[in-house]
């Protein structure tokens, strides 16, 4: 089968990958682009560990063919924050113990990133519903919810003071 030339913008950089159309976006990111922060948990679009931001949507990259991502603008966990300047969500997940084994964390944070763009002042119920596409086996979610609510609060504080 002929390979296709896949062009995407990933974490702000234009990339080109030669790939079979059947390759899943999660594999392209992980294997071809070495962005291994995007994890694969279930491969059936239930767990959300592979969540990335694609054209301003949270998508499960295990269920997107590479070919469908042609021209897409993608943000992975590696595109949120830098070692010297963590994204607020990353800080709050640490602050509120919103992670344990870390496997679901990149998916959680990328999903929360998009969720907060769409709902900047969520209630706890909003967060639980908005994060319901991501499974975590370690934390029982309570501290993840706390971390996201704290992020929203801080973001709003920063907006007000600005």
């Amino acid at each position, binding site marked *: 089968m*002929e390979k296709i030339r896949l062009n995407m913008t990933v974490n702000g950089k234009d990339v080109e990958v030669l790939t079979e159309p059947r390759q899943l976006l999660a594999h392209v990111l992980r294997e071809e682009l070495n962005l291994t922060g995007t994890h694969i948990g279930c491969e059936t679009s239930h767990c959300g560990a592979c969540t990335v931001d694609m054209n301003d949507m949270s998508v499960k990259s295990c269920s997107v063919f590479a070919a469908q991502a042609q021209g897409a603008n993608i943000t992975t966990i590696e595109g949120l924050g830098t070692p010297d300047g963590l994204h607020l969500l990353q800080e709050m997940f640490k602050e509120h113990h919103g992670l344990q084994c870390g496997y679901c964390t990149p998916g959680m944070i990328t999903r929360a990133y998009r*969720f907060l763009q769409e709902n900047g002042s969520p209630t706890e119920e909003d967060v639980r519903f908005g994060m319901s596409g991501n499974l975590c086996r370690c934390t029982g979610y309570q501290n993840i919810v706390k971390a996201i609510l704290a992020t929203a609060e801080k973001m709003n504080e920063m907006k007000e003071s600005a």
Partner: protein
Amino acid sequence: MIPSNFEYHKPDSIDGALSILTEWGDDARVIAGGHSLIPVMKQRLTDISHLIDLGGISELKGISIENNKVSIGAMTTQHELITNTQLAKFVPLIREASLQIADPQVRYVGTIGGNVANGDPANDMPGLMQTLDASYELTGPNGVRIVKARDFYEAAYFTAREDEEILTSISFSVPNCGYAYEKQKRKIGDYATAAAGVLINMDNDTCSFASIALTNLSDTPVYCEEAVNNLVGKKVDSNAIKKAVHYCVEASDPVADTRGPVEFKKYVAGIIVQKAIENAIARV
């Protein structure tokens, strides 16, 4: 969980899609959001050598509400259905139901066209479209034809759509009445154990209009005609509701699975329908 290889096509028009579909016949399949198709391909339960992505066809997208008529392009996502303020205002039933489908990530990608065209009895939109008495626009090499949602489903994964046709849009009238979509499921992301869509209008105590359809309680969605006939024109009290519920349960034909045995599903179907009717009446 790796699909076999295929050739990928991304036409930018319906005509383009149709010509590829015609050229490759049985070897080709169209893909919308892909959240039903891709898992099946990953398990290699289906053999597809030509995949036609409808994502590049702009005429398949969008929601319009004009002269009391709603038209939704097949590639409109669940997320767009939820966030469209006009739709939420005129047909809140759609938003209520869409929020109960899958999970946030899947709703960004999952489309109304894919959900109704696939013929999966577990999908929510087919029952919902039967509730709304929607019409499906099917475009094929010989032009466009319209099939009512209530006539579209033949058996699980068998529909009135011909292989060379594409379901291009969905339309229905603004209902202007009480509504409800009730769904029992095991967890977020699950299909319904039992679900029901209800529209109802009242003239004082008397039911002037009703529509009820069930999800995942048979190998197709179930439009509950007898229940409707027994409601419309009648004074609606608890007995009338009970009777309608009875007809709905009679019309259902669920199968046992991990969600439970048949008698349980039928019982819950009754509870869910009753809740939906009561909620819909309260919203008239």
